[in-house]
Each structure stands twice: as C-alpha cells, then as structure tokens.
C-alpha cells in the first residue's frame, strides 16, 4: 500500500490529490475523499480565524498509526492524508483524507475511519479568534462516539 502523509501550513489542491491517488494504479476502482473546511460559526459565535497547533513528531507518528489501522481493516491501494497547521480563515481547507481501493465499500469506510480516528487521536488543537477574543476549542463527546463505533468492526486479518 502507498501511504503519503503531510502536515503543512500550505494549502492543497483536492483535485490533484484525488488524481494522484489512482495515478498509474490499474487495480484502483474507487477513490473516496474527504475535505474539512473552516466554518465561520462555532458554538453560536463568529469565528474570524483559527490557529491550528500540533505536536511535531507525534502528529506524523499518530497519523501513520491511524492509516496502518485502516489498512488492517480494509483493502486499500493508496492513502493520502494532508493536515494544515498555522493560521486559517473561514472557507480555508484544513484537512484532506483520500483512499484508493479496488472497491468503493473499502474506500468509503477507510476514509471515514481515518477522519474519525484523526479527530480523537492525532495531536492537533484549534484556537479560534472570535469578537470576544481567542479561545481553545473544546473536544466533543460526539467525536469520541464516532470513533468508538469502529471498535466493533471485525479486523480483516
């Protein structure tokens, strides 16, 4: 399986990322992709910008681990994860997860699994700028619930 992970300040091109997932791989029948964006409202307040902090070193390691777990559960040909850090504004892209596979079921599930695990296990933190000042985003219980539902998924091998 081909794995590529980037943690970067720069923006990314989703079309290019999707194209490179299947490029030259004749066995790929499906590519599922997710793009996360900065919203302008959170918890009822205007968000003017946000700063994404991370734990260099551990971040890459955690993402590698999550991708490896996805590959144990589903047949994947290629996986690409891009996560931005630094200052971002509403409408900016934050994260890209793309999975290429022979069949759509594996691609859809692996893509959703990686996002759910990333949200609860990869060391990123969002600090929002609102008219009332800066505030750290609190973790959501619904994210933990989303991640825990995969625990029942039978391992492929």
């Amino acid at each position, binding site marked *: 399986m081909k794995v590529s992970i980037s943690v970067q300040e720069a923006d990314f091109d989703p079309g290019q990322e999707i194209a490179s997932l299947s490029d030259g791989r004749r066995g790929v029948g499906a590519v599922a992709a997710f793009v996360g964006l900065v919203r302008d409202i959170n918890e009822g307040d205007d968000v003017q910008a946000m700063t994404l902090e991370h*734990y260099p070193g551990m971040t890459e390691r955690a993402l590698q681990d999550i991708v490896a777990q996805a590959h144990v559960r589903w047949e994947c040909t290629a996986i690409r994860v891009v996560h931005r850090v630094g200052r971002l504004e509403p409408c900016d892209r934050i994260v890209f997860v793309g999975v290429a596979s022979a069949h759509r079921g594996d691609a859809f599930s692996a893509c959703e699994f990686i996002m759910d695990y990333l949200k609860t296990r990869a060391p990123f933190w969002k600090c929002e700028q609102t008219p009332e000042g800066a505030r750290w985003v609190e973790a959501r219980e619904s994210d933990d619930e989303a991640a825990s539902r995969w625990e029942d998924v039978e391992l492929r091998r």
Partner: protein
Amino acid sequence: MTIKILYFAALRDALGRSEESMTLPAGVTTVGELRAFLADRGEVWSVLETNRNVRAARNQRMVSAGEPLAPGDEVAFFPPVTGG
C-alpha cells in the same frame, strides 16, 4: 533520571510554560506519578490533578498513568485533541 516535559495548547497557556527538563526525584517512576508530582507544585499546576481530561504521551505515543518512565524520555501533557 532526567526527562524532558512538553505542554501543549490550553494547558500550556494555563501553566505559562511550553517545556522543561527535569531530574526526577526518587519515587517518581511512572507518568501518573510524574503528573501528581507536578500537580503538587500547587496553584496553576493543580490543574494536572483536577482536570482528568488532560492526556499524556511518552516518546510521542499516547499512554496511560501506569506507563513507566526511562532516562531521556520525552513526556507530553495536553488537552483532548481537536483537529480535523
């Protein structure tokens, strides 16, 4: 034994410190014991005791309180993650 400790995000802001190097006193041999030892500094540090949501990593892997410490370790404390 000497280790490096890192603090991130809201926890770093609350503690007013992003990292430190520390020679551990006898009796501090696990991540949980380190956490209790730091909390005993009092004032802002007590958050390590009172806020059970604070997570810990040893050498860049998430661990629980019973994780043993070794010389040269990098230990990090941080709030629940909010990326994606």
